[in-house]
């Protein structure tokens, strides 16, 4: 495995062509949009904020894709390093505006696009988001890198500056916390 769970077919060739061919960049964008958006959504509060940060991620990727070196890391790891930096930049600012947090999380979670017939899914999403929000920032980051970005523990370890086994243990404990949170909620 090269560091990602899902690999875009001909990814390296597409990345190499992306600086000159809009279609190549568009293919990369289409492939990675769901994973980047989900990663950001896990980590920031509010759908609108997630939109903004996701846009920043792809803008940064667009302007610096020519600096990507395939021999250093898989493209997904490179892209999610950008995503991680963008989220961290955002969180740094938000730490100074924490009074928005509760309202944003509560109000915006229910204000996301909700196509008809997905009410149950929305409820699940809000519940899971709330559970993830109860984790520490590092745990949220790792959960997002695992389940939204789909990275292997090895790549997560490289990004987060942890050992691979440490990543596994933190993820395991975080999932246990989520289970406890969700079980507690369901019981009330």
């Amino acid at each position, binding site marked *: 495995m090269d560091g990602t769970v899902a690999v875009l077919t001909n990814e390296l060739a597409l990345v190499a062509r992306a600086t000159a061919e809009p279609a190549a960049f568009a293919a990369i964008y289409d492939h990675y949009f769901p994973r980047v958006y989900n990663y950001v959504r896990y980590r920031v509060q509010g759908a609108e904020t997630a939109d903004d940060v996701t846009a920043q991620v792809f803008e940064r990727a667009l302007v610096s894709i020519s600096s990507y070196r395939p021999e250093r890391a898989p493209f997904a790891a490179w892209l999610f390093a950008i995503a991680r930096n963008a989220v961290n930049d955002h969180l740094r600012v938000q730490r100074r505006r924490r009074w928005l947090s509760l309202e944003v999380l509560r109000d915006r979670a229910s204000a996301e696009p909700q196509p008809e017939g997905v009410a149950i899914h929305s409820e699940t999403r809000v519940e899971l988001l*709330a559970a993830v929000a109860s984790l520490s920032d590092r745990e949220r980051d790792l959960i997002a890198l695992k389940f939204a970005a789909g990275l292997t523990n090895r790549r997560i370890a490289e990004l987060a500056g942890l050992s691979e086994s440490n990543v596994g243990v933190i993820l395991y404990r975080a999932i246990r916390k989520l289970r406890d949170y969700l079980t507690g909620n369901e019981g009330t």
Partner: protein
Amino acid sequence: MSHQDELYLANRFSADVDRLLEQQDRIEETPAPAEYEELLGVAERLASLDFSAGHPLHERLRRELMARYREGHERCHLRVGNWPHPRWRVALAGLAVVLLCVGLLAVYPPARALAQETWQTVLRTVQLVRALPRLTGEALAGGLATSIESPAEAAPLVDFPVRVPSYLPQDYEFKYGFVSHLPVQSVSFDYGIPYGRIVLLSSGRAISGETYRGLRVFQMRGNFPGMWPIGEAIAQEVTVGGRPALWLTGLPVVQAQASVTIRTTVKDNEEVERVVLSRQETPPEVLARTPATALMWEEGDSLLGVFDLDGRFPLEEMTRIAEGLVPISTPPPEKLPTPMPWPEITGHEIASVEEMVSSAEFSPYIFNPLPQGWRLERITAFGPSDKPLEQRYLLYYRYSEDAYIHLIEGLSVPLLSWPNYIERGGGALRHVVNGGLEVWSSDMHQWAWEDSIKESARRSELPVPDEVHAMFVRTPDGFSLELTAVDVPWDKTLTLIEHLTLAPGADPALNSRLMKGCYPCP
């Protein structure tokens, strides 16, 4: 569970999650504890979570990115509204005209050989030419640029060592920078004085006699055989730190208003010009052309240059700046604040201050007595009762006085939205009581200390738009409070803060013990 057991289960769990994400079947292993299956169930729910499905952002962002891609370069812009510190906004407001996308800094791929004069013997990596050959617009695309707000941001974006000035003329400070990736990696840092003078030219005619004072430090990975148009500039061979260098005077420089797009065009007479366009591709109102000077030299495989954008410094001063360039020091890793515990979302309402005092694991503060016009409307409790650092109480105060009705007029959606709470004719103050210092990042507290107003309460105001302001209070016992006011004038909030006191019945020494690390406290 022993550490070894946990490590084994964690590894096994990770492998199962990877298979889950790859939609592969699990490999049967030895029986696991009962909770293991529960945890895998949670993982499965997470893996099936997709916020992006059908999200309109996907298409919208795609269109925007493609449009920018086709544009060929990013808008040269300064996002004034996003700049973090108000002094930048003040400086920009004073300048009105900001740097600049300068034609002379464009590097173009050569189409055919051109007269090189003798400069090529001084600079190996680029050719300085009087004019560029006729090229297509596509070939002249200036490349994508990433704006940066500090030199340190540039270092990880390029493959060569980035340098910053260790010496600058008096009052010059970093203003703006950008990193270009096409056709070759380059970094530009602009330095200016806080309140520069401005040259305003319209169609080549001066409409103001003032000049913006700016310096640009330029660095480029020099393995690209580009051409550099210098017009009728005079070139003189000099040295920088003992290395051969070129001293150029009379360089044509274009300074432009912020938030414009820079396009390169080629005129019929083969002169190249960087034309400044607004987003609607109409000429901007402000356009300035000034004769600049530049000192250019090479070190290793990098091309370096210092540009004086209004040509006011002599060669000696420019040489001093150039020889003072030093590799940027990598900042030490940021010390992250203690992770903020995330409280539960909904909370529950409690009946009285007395109940709050009896249920809190710390000693809460309230406003007592409440000044005229204020009333405590609601108390909401959050967080587990056995964890004081995660306990929070939100006290909603309302201010209603006819004199402040006008403050609500014209208000759109409040920044803080509490359904059925904010009404016309009333202000609101949300008083958040936190269980301890660790809830906030350390810099917040630093602000609070630095902006101390009086001994009894140390405060800082963080202004935010839309009639909302926040205040952070540090009490004498080290306790932290956050106040957010909506549609309440700042002076009214200040009046209220004078009444901040421990809630009746609260232990006056408990918070101090908490701050000293006593947890749980007897």
